[in-house]
């Protein structure tokens, strides 16, 4: 069996009293798109930055392309590309210059003119970095990550803070990279991003990997229950919703009651009866098939963006 192209083994990292990573382990195969999914502060960026060679773990080991990120120097950097959580360049640097500058640092170089076209930056080739929109800056960051034609690309929250349209553009680019059989490790706190883009996902919370698998496997792991979200005129009696027929779990988030039901039709009938008995009123009701969000809620007891 071939050695994984990315291997994180029992990584620990503290920032003062804050435990950012508490034994994170995972392996990524060549050509795979692997996602680290978790809320802000879960430890995703720390894990990625250790793999990029930008941080030293307190304990544990990391290997990328068979190399130690800390000790392999230029040979390691020649093999990776990365988009940082926030990329910054000098304001007066032109788009074309940025790509050409970074390309010159590597022995293996991609065609920068082709990258400009591929990332729809051709028209902005002579624009200063300060003149680019958020989406254009992110496309440039992605293009810069590919100037050395890397084997492995790290994408740290590549769509964070971008509007939905730009986010879709970035998804298209990532899907293109995926088709080119490049190994991608991306971090995200967007469920739909992980579901759409990743072959496998590790759910990270409080510095630990709490579940790992394909999005499909993770969804099935959420017991195959249907999620029913209801909003009521008044709070229900204590524990009343959890006792409804078919309900396997019940939580409240910001006034919305989330029920997980193994038998949704029976649960809804029971819910209506319960509300009539309490003289309560149903304001809204939505039903969802099992999703990664459900898996996350089941595993952590919280919503991803709480």
């Amino acid at each position, binding site marked *: 069996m071939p050695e994984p192209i990315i291997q994180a083994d029992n990584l620990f990292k503290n920032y003062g009293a804050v435990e950012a990573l508490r034994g994170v382990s995972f392996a990524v195969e060549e050509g795979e798109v692997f996602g680290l999914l978790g809320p802000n502060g879960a430890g995703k960026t720390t894990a990625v930055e250790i793999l990029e060679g*930008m941080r030293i773990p307190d304990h544990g080991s990391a290997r990328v392309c068979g190399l130690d990120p800390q000790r392999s120097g230029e040979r390691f*950097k020649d093999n*990776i590309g990365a988009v*940082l959580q926030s*990329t*910054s360049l000098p304001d*007066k*640097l032109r788009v074309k210059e940025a790509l050409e*500058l*970074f390309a010159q640092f590597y022995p293996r170089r991609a065609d920068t003119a082709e990258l400009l076209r591929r990332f729809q930056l051709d028209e902005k080739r002579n624009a200063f970095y300060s003149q680019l929109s958020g989406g254009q800056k992110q496309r440039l960051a992605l293009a810069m990550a590919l100037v050395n034609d890397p084997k492995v690309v790290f994408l740290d929250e590549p769509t964070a803070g971008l509007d939905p349209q730009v986010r879709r553009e970035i998804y298209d680019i990532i899907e293109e990279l995926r088709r080119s059989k490049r190994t991608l490790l991306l971090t995200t706190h967007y469920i739909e991003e992980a579901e759409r883009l990743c072959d496998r996902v590790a759910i990270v919370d409080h510095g630990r990997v709490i579940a790992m698998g394909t999005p499909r496997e993770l969804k099935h792991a959420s017991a195959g229950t249907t999620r029913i979200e209801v909003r009521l005129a008044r709070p229900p009696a204590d524990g009343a919703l959890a006792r409804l027929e078919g309900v396997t779990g019940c939580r409240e988030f910001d006034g919305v009651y989330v029920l997980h039901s193994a038998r949704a039709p029976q649960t809804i009938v029971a819910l209506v009866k319960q509300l009539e008995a309490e003289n309560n009123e149903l304001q809204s009701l939505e039903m969802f098939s099992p999703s990664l969000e459900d898996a996350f809620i089941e595993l952590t007891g919280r919503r991803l963006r709480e």
Partner: protein
Amino acid sequence: MRHTWTLAKIRIRLAMRNRTFFFFTLAMPLAFLFFFVFLFGKGQPGMIAYVLGSVLSLTVMGSFWGLSVQLVTFREQGILRRFRLAPVGAGAMLASGILTNYILALPTVAIEILLCRWVFHMQTWGSVWAILLLVSIGSAAFSAFGLIVASVTNTMQETQIINQLIWMCFLLLSGATIPLAGFPHWIQRASLFLPATYLAAGLEGATTRTATLGEIATDVAALTIGFLVAFEISRQLFRWEPEAKVPGRAKLWVLAALVPFLVFGVWQNVWGHRPTIVSRFDMLSRGSGHAQTTPPH
């Protein structure tokens, strides 16, 4: 070395797009030149060479200021982080700044020399080889001092305060603006511990052709050693990350950068013949043809 040149080329382009750069690198030194000529050289063509030495010193010392500010800005804005992902080392990043400063200072130096010779009727070209040598090594040394400031400060505010303090010492106590002859002897002696004094004295000696080969060699040696020590210290203390703060004890490394000038200062005060630097102004303003070698008492 290849990465150093790649980075230097782009830094030169960035500087050329920055109006502040033109003000500090070209307009300000030239303003000093015109001001000093008006102040000291009016009706005394013999003084123009002295004025040129001072203005060249200020031009070269300016390398110190811009580089520290730029490096801290790059670090604070997270620009250095992006470079860290590429196979670029701290040495290349720092050396490119020094090389950029040097290349950008050369046109100003040339304009200053040509103005003095052709417009202000400076009597000779001075020792051109010595001027070039001192400008080159001086630019490298003062850029490296700027890099140390950038390495030991955590914020732009800190950088500006430290820069101001050091700059004032360089400006006022080196002889580059106020002739050292006007200061009490203990200040003249203290000035021999400042790197700026070696640059100013060397350049004044070179432009007026009043310095001996030994004196120029001393100035070049002091600045060369100062550069090498400062560069290595700044390389050791270099930080890519905005949140990486320099620990208090690391700041003590800065003291190591002062060691060469402490040694040279002691040597000059005890055995050297640097006192000529403090009397050069008097000598030229009196129109004397010989350097005065009497040490300060």
